[in-house]
Every structure is written in structure tokens, then in C-alpha cells.
């Protein structure tokens, strides 16, 4: 667990993202709790979604390149391709882990927005407009 509390949170949003990334990297399981100033709830949710966008937007094209690469005709090439696939897509594979991380960022963003709504806050940010348009 770690807490982020304070009035200077707006300027520290980038730092929060970094802190959470570090925390997530350090903790293979469990929950991360944090405290947010009410006027920054939606900004932080947007920040989480932005990070997830960048992860997915960067990873997806690379996955395609990996996925469509022509299969090798010889056994060493096939073995190497199998190994690469496991490294990327296996349970502990990088793609699997990055996807899980992006999922958790999305869930954290959704939790933040829900919390804000429960406290009667109104999302006037661009992210709020995107969320509303998707309903």
C-alpha cells in the first residue's frame, strides 16, 4: 500500500503514474491504495487511461509484426519462433504482462471515475467527454 495525499497533487500526476508503475512492478500481487484530492480524481483517471493508451498503441503494432512473421522452414528457425512466441505470449510473457497492466490501469481509471461520481463530482475533462460518448 502507498498513499498519495496533498494539495499539490495536480502537478504530481505524472509522478503518480510513475509511482504506481514502480509499485506495480515491485508487487507481483495485491492491491494498491492511494488518496486523491477531489478536484484531481478525473484528471488522474484520464492519466491512467492515457498510459494504457500508450501501452496498447505501442504494443499492438509490434505484436502484429511478430504474429505475421513468415514461419521458418528449418527446425532451428521453428524452434526459435516457438521460443519467441512463449516469451511474448506465454503466461509470463511480456505481451501478457503488459496487457494485464493496461487492464489494471483501465480498471483503476474506472474506479476513480466511479468514486468521483459517488462523491457527487462532475467530470468536465476531455476524458469525461470520451467516456460519456462511449455510453
Amino acid at each position, binding site marked *: 500500500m502507498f498513499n498519495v*495525499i*496533498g494539495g499539490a497533487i495536480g502537478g504530481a500526476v505524472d509522478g503518480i503514474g510513475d509511482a*504506481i508503475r514502480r*509499485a*506495480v*512492478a515491485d*508487487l*507481483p*500481487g*495485491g*492491491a*494498491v*491504495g*492511494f*488518496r*486523491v*484530492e*477531489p478536484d484531481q*480524481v478525473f484528471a488522474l483517471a484520464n492519466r491512467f*487511461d492515457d498510459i*494504457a*493508451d500508450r501501452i*496498447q*498503441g*505501442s504494443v*499492438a*503494432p509490434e*505484436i*502484429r*509484426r511478430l*504474429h*505475421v512473421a*513468415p*514461419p521458418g522452414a528449418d527446425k532451428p528457425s521453428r524452434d526459435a519462433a516457438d521460443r519467441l*512466441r*512463449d516469451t511474448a*505470449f*506465454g503466461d509470463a510473457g511480456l505481451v*501478457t*504482462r*503488459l*496487457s*494485464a*497492466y*493496461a*487492464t*489494471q490501469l*483501465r*480498471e*483503476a*481509471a*474506472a*474506479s*476513480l471515475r466511479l*468514486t468521483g461520481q459517488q*462523491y457527487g463530482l462532475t467530470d468536465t475533462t476531455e476524458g469525461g467527454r*470520451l*467516456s460519456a*460518448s*462511449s455510453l
Partner: protein
Amino acid sequence: MALAVTAAFAVACGGDPERGTPSPGGSAAQDTATGTTVPPAPRPAELPLDTVQPCRLVADDLRAAFAIDRPDQPSSAGPGTEVCTLLSSTTGSYLVALERQAGIDRLERPVNTTVGGFPAVDIRQEGVRIGHLSIDVADGQRLDVEVQRLSGDQPVDLIHQDTLRFAEAVLASLRQQLGR
């Protein structure tokens, strides 16, 4: 006052070719049941990708149908390749790639399906939860569509069904834009 928020982080570590008789560019598929070689079907039309923008192939109604609610992520994956990654905050990513200098023959895989009547290569790998279709749209050019899911919960068959549905819609949009 600060709001307390708890989020569960469970596992995260971390030129326009002339119309005419379009011909398919892929290699023939081997019929596994009979051992005979099946020539790929001809393209219903020639759909050159030279002037097309991948993000513009996905219209608003399609975005709504697939819960695409995040800003588009356009990118380039080398000469002749233009990619648009479309994101859903709830389901995953949908990728549209225009390969303007590499047809489906460059995949070195047999043509094994069709999308909207066009010859296509459906690439599936064991243990990989990704839907991928490469569609033979013009000589030396192909349209790739790929669906990647955030969650590991969705059955693989459903991912492939969604991929086909998305690919058919993107292909229909391409035909509409080119008027063919």
C-alpha cells in the same frame, strides 16, 4: 479532503491499378482432407490502398459497435506500411494495417479463408489469443486486421468471430470509399 481509492493490481509486473480481372496474390491452400491443392479464389474487385487512411476506414457506427472509445493511435511500421490502432477501454485493441508494398504472398502462408469474398490468410498460433486476418485486396498489397483482447477470459473462438466481423466491416468501408 482527499478521497481514498483502492485499485486492485493483481498480477501486473511490471497508383491505381486498372480494373480488370483481379487475381489473388497468395499461395494456394492445401486441402488437408484430400491432399489436393486448392487455388485461391479470385478477388471480387481490385482495392488499391495507395490513397486510403487506415483510421478513416472505421466509421462511427463501427466504433460504437466495438466499444472503441479512446483516441486513435496511428503509426508507421516501415516503408509502405500504415497502421491505425483503435482502442477500447473495456475490451482491447483493434488494429488496421495497410501494407502497400507487401501482398499476402509475402506472408509465406497458404490462403485459408475468405473475407467478404476476398482471399485471406487467417493466422492462428497455439496459445496466442489474437485474431488476425490478412486480406488480399490488390496486387502486392494487403489489408491486415487484428484484434487483441485485454482480458484473457474471452474464448478464442469468440475473438476470431469478432475479428471476422470487424474485418468484414472494414473491408466494406474500404469498398465504399473506393466506390468498388
